[in-house]
């Protein structure tokens, strides 16, 4: 019997502390679980419960995956207590991925805030994997403070030297500390003076609801059309398979029709930013 509710036993290989509220868990499921960037999985603490997360590692990595989780509720607090060697459950992947084929030949703008960088990291790594297919990638990252920046070693260091012609970064913090020499301001400020041919561009936004709302409005203001904006909608995806009813968004279920939505498909729906 094919049981979509049955989790795969998964070992925690490593726990990486990203910030004081965010950790990345390196996981090895007992049987293969291949996802595409943007799809999500359900991660469970055995006997306690589960919650949905979008993997943050490269979809091309075999046998292992990483999930970046902010401590926000009951399950995520328990997940934060996990140690190397602990067992968790995984199900998935579920939902619609980022449509990479539609991004080919385009100037790609990634806009991420806080833990919303997680799905974008998976997407970024997928783009980098075939970077010659894309015209350019501009990755705009916003965090509250310098210590809230996740994937510091990648964002501030390793990724900077990848392909300087094609791949660029704009990194900002809402509030600086003494050591911070970079930009200060909300992530929307990184969208000013874009050196992008908007006609041949797509933008992908992921972050807290309020950040997605203002980033989307800003993108529209600077000339992006709704059909050029992709959003990852965070809803209460419980079953993950379009049955339990929790993540309904108008005529869609975030779990099966999303979580990646093109903005023009959902812009008419009430309650999308709440």
């Amino acid at each position, binding site marked *: *019997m*094919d*049981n*979509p*509710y*049955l*989790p795969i*036993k998964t070992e925690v290989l490593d726990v990486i502390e990203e910030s004081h509220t965010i950790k990345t868990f390196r996981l090895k499921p007992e049987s293969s679980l291949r996802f595409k960037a943007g799809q999500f999985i359900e991660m*469970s*603490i*055995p*006997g*306690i*419960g*589960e*919650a949905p997360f979008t993997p943050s590692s490269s979809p091309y990595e075999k046998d292992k995956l990483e999930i970046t989780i*902010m401590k*926000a*509720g*009951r*399950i*995520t607090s328990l997940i934060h207590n996990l140690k190397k060697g602990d*067992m968790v*459950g995984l199900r998935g992947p579920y939902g619609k991925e980022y449509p990479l084929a539609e991004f080919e030949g385009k100037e790609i703008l990634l806009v991420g805030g806080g833990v919303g960088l997680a799905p974008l990291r998976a997407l970024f790594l997928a783009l980098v994997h075939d970077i010659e297919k894309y015209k350019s990638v501009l990755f705009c990252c916003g965090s509250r403070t310098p210590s809230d920046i996740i994937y510091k070693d990648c964002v501030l260091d390793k990724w900077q030297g990848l392909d300087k012609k094609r791949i660029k970064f704009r990194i900002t913090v809402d509030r600086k500390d003494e050591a911070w020499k970079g930009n200060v301001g909300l992530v929307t400020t990184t969208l000013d003076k874009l050196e992008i041919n908007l006609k041949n561009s797509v933008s992908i936004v992921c972050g807290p*609801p309020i950040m997605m709302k203002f980033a989307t409005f800003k993108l529209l203001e600077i000339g992006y059309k709704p059909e050029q904006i992709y959003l990852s909608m*965070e*809803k*209460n995806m*419980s*079953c*993950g*398979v*379009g*049955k*339990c*009813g*929790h*993540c*309904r968004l*108008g*005529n869609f279920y975030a779990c099966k029709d999303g979580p990646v939505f093109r903005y023009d498909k959902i812009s008419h729906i*009430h*309650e*999308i930013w*709440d």
Partner: protein
Amino acid sequence: MGPYFINKSNLDRLAKCLSKTYKIFAPIKSDDKRFFKKLGEDGLKDSVIGEIRTVEPVKSFYFPARTKIAEYFSEECPDKKERPIAIIGAKACDLVSFKVMDYVYGQEPFRDPFYVSMRDSGLIISSDCTCYGETCFCAAIGIMPYPAEGFDINLSELDGGYVAEAGSVKGEKIIKEYFRLFQSAEPYIEKKDSNRKKLKEDLLEHVKKSKIPPRDSIQAAFKAKFDSPLWEEVSRTCVECGACNYVCPACHCFILMDQKKEESFERLRMWDSCLLMSFARVAGGANPRKLLAQRMRNRFDKKFNFFPDVIGRFGCTGCGRCIEACPGRIDIREVLSKLQ
């Protein structure tokens, strides 16, 4: 094939024969209400095949309030085979609710194996309503009080027996196998049709009083009332008990619950209610429907806007169970009447 006539004692014989293969449930009457009861040695002696729907929704047999759906990290897979379920005396509103449930649970690419296998192996012997209840309003939303489809066999009660009509290959096979229990329906057809016509007219007269908008205008009327004080008004007496969801034959939402079980862990699927505050809340506290009025509106949105778009029919069967169950006396007919 058919239709045929089967008298009461022969239907009882048929039920007893079928009980070798199926776990059979049929309605009995208690305190002027009808409840499904497992068929015992007495067969259909106390059963009420006609009249109206039971108190509990028929979904509870295929999508029980609490189902163990996974036991994980253990080697054993307890896939215990139970006898399939046969329902005798399901009503038209029950059958229509399967359209919603079958869509949700049978939808690819992840079919719900528990629901689907019970539906596939189950048997539905439905029956015409022979009267209507005060809260019945199926006819107002285009459902007649006698089944049109979705049954294996349908029974129309009259003259000490039933006109039996097969609605599926499974139903035809049963009639063929027990052919000696059936006789010609010829003398009864006219009466069956006139009974149906009379009940339909009576029911249409009854639902007129509710002033529900014409069926084809309900969705547009709902959309027009999306931003209106109506939802606050309607939810004023709601105590968020979830009873309307639980008794609704078309409410399919559930919550997954995990628990420890000796050496392994089990996952339960339990009915959930969209009127509860936590229904759409995410970790961190964001909640697209913080207000009760939003959740009330969402219930109507799902039934009268979402399902018409998605499967071309309402997520409401007009059974009226929610009206009887609501301690706040919220009457779905009244809400619908206020849409126009």
